[in-house]
């Protein structure tokens, strides 16, 4: 049997398998069958042996038995490998379809959910502020049912809203810690307070949280970080972080003269937006895609990046590509400074980018390709044997981070674990 014949045979079997699949009920692992990869759901155990026998049956009589057996084996292996490839990435499955509002979901939450799902609101800070502001509205529109108290019932009401938001896009760590704080406030609020007063008090608490933990924190970080930028520096930043953007703008306003390299990459290409902001402030900018990083890294004096969250071992969970930038910078002895508010600290430890991640939607959602090639040739779709993965985050190990700028000061990544305690977190 020639290679071509063998290949043809495999293709035929694959086709047979695919048709068998569509008839079969959707596998339990992938909750949304129509989601992103209809062609290859995780293989149930049954087809492999069946296909093995099929292969032996269809093998031409002239073929030696050894070849035939090998062929059958390889086909069976094929199925195993494919399903394994899926299994590796299956847990950060993409939740595309925004679930229909289940239960008593506030219209503002539905709206926000759509914004999240379409990445109209993205970025840890922006999502957290948006969520809290909408929650204020939800709380104001809330009336305690009879035979219940606000302290007890509001939390369950909020949980419904939260699960709707999570169905739109996995929750950001920032949202998590803000919501935890809010729930704590709700259950701690005075049971005898008139309802309107209690709601006002909660809204006030939310405003305070946004002000203290995000806005003021950012201002302090900006003040600290701008001191690290000097005249003649060449600053490199990756993607777009609201904090880094403000740091650069403020340093420029203060009269420091430096230039900025904006590194960017698919799938989001957020750096372009940062670039337009910086250019509008007439900061001299250079724009490059991530692969070209190796060529420019030698000219950089400091790397500034933002973070989605930071783990207690000092690992920074941030936009995919940050780890590459930090790694290259570290190799060339360029300091890597992470700007991160303390409310982004997350208590767990994550060892690699696999345990938790999120996928960006397929296709050219962000209109990110320059129009030098026909778009059709660049936006591939999933097909047999081909899957498109766009992880949104990666984990930068603490070893490639020089310092973390927080509102409580500049600290080395190893000391992250002491900060929540120092801030007075109740154990």
């Amino acid at each position, binding site marked *: 049997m020639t*290679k071509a014949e063998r*290949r043809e045979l495999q*293709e035929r079997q*694959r086709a047979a398998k695919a048709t068998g699949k569509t008839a079969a009920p959707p596998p339990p692992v992938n909750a949304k069958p129509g989601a992103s990869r209809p062609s290859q759901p995780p293989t149930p155990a049954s087809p492999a042996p069946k296909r093995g026998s099929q292969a032996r049956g269809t093998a031409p009589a002239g073929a030696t038995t050894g070849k035939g057996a090998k062929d059958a084996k*390889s086909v069976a*292996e*094929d199925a195993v*490998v*494919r399903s*394994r*490839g899926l299994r590796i*990435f299956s847990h950060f499955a993409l939740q595309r379809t925004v679930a229909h509002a289940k239960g008593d979901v506030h219209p503002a939450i539905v709206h926000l959910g759509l914004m999240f799902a379409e990445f109209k609101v993205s970025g840890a800070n922006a999502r957290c502020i948006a969520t809290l502001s909408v929650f204020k509205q939800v709380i104001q529109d809330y009336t305690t049912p009879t035979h219940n108290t606000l302290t007890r019932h509001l939390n369950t009401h909020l949980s419904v809203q939260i699960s709707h938001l999570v169905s739109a896009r996995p929750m950001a760590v920032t949202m998590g810690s803000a919501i935890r704080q809010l729930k704590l406030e709700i259950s701690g609020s005075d049971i005898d307070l008139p309802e309107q007063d209690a709601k006002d008090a909660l809204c006030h608490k939310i405003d305070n949280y946004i002000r203290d933990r995000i806005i003021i924190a950012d201002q302090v970080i900006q003040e600290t970080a701008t001191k690290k930028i000097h005249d003649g520096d060449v600053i490199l930043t990756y993607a777009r972080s609201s904090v880094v953007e403000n740091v650069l703008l403020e340093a420029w306003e203060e009269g420091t003269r430096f230039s900025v390299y904006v590194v960017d*990459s*698919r*799938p989001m290409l957020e750096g*372009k937006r940062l*670039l*337009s902001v910086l*250019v509008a402030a007439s900061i*001299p*900018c*250079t*724009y*490059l*895609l*991530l*692969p*070209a*990083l*190796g*060529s*420019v890294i*030698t000219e950089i004096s400091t790397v500034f990046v933002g973070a989605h969250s930071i783990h207690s071992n000092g690992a920074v969970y941030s936009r*995919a*590509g940050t*780890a*590459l930038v930090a*790694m*290259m910078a570290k*190799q060339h002895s360029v300091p890597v400074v992470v700007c991160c508010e303390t409310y982004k600290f997350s208590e767990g430890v994550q060892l*690699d*980018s*696999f345990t938790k*991640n999120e996928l960006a939607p397929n296709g050219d959602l962000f209109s990110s*390709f*320059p*129009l*030098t*090639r026909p778009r059709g040739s660049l936006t*591939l779709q999933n*097909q047999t*044997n*081909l*899957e*498109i*993965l766009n*992880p949104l*985050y*990666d*984990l930068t190990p603490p070893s490639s981070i020089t310092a973390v700028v927080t509102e409580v000061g500049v600290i080395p990544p190893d000391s992250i674990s002491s900060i929540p305690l120092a801030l007075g977190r109740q154990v």
Partner: protein
Amino acid sequence: MAPESHSSGSQRAVETLAAKLRRRQVLGSRETALETVLVLRQVVSKARFTNIHQLVEIIRGVGRKLVEAQPKEHTVGNTVRKLLHHVREEYNNASKGTAASAANVFSISKFVLQGQPRKQVTAQKAESALVLREDDPDDPDSFARTLKPVLMEAIQVILDELETVYENISKSAKDHIHSDEIILTIGKSHTVETFLKSAAHYHNFTVIVAESGPSYGGHDMAQSLSSAGVSTFLVPDSSIYALMSRVNKVIIGAHAVLANGGMYAITGSLLAATAARAHSTPVVVCAGQFKLTPLWNLYHEYGALDFADPSSVLGFEEGDLVDKVDVVNPFYDYVRPDLVDVYITNDGDHPPPSIYRIIKESYDDEDNEL
């Protein structure tokens, strides 16, 4: 007879190729090498010379012209060097074969004098029937007439090598990849593509293709691999680090392999190789021998100072940004020898530190500068 008239046809061929190179109409190192050989064949077949020096000078002249047209396409120079090496070898075969073959005794002094481990076989196989008469005043063409057939054979050998280079590299593919591995590659390389496809006949493995912006050659690569039945994942360059912890091997192609064991490769290769090093993942480079370049002290920064079109990074649809921003879009990365574990060539596998030896064997020192 006018001394230059003979070359008008081949002259035109040289000019055409030089123009094509200058305009980057010939892309891909093997394509360039093939075109160069074809032009050289034309040149040699039309050339008139009465001694070896004239012949060498003619070939060199053509080589210089082509290399100047596109100095970053190293395979052009390599092909010319290879041909010169073959020319000298054939000449030595023919001329020294008639002379006594007592030179085959190994002595350390000769080794030192020679300065390079040139293959010692020259004298033995020369049962040559050729009788070379250089600078024969009676019959000036006799030298060329006797040498040309062997030269044509030599050129054919180079041509054959180029035509089978992918197959020969892929021969060992099944030994380098085993079942259930996860391979990461970046961009599109014909060599790697053939290599992976040939390994796919024996094993089932998964390939993760990084798309390598701004050319996004990875899309074509992923398309081609998946249609050949290889389980393929296409990922953006940004997730190389994130995925590296699950990758068993990084297999990439090269643009040119340098004498120090480093290489030029498509931009992004440096990132992939460094990330692989950070995770102790082996880096395998597939490259034909025609990519071996006897240079090393080149412009390493800025990816060999060769830039592609910036509009593919920041398109003109970005209106007001375009004229205020510098855009960097290099073609190649320089990957240091310590980041590469092995070079798989059509002549076996070699670790980076032994590249210089192969280069010494396949080219003559005096041709390093054409």
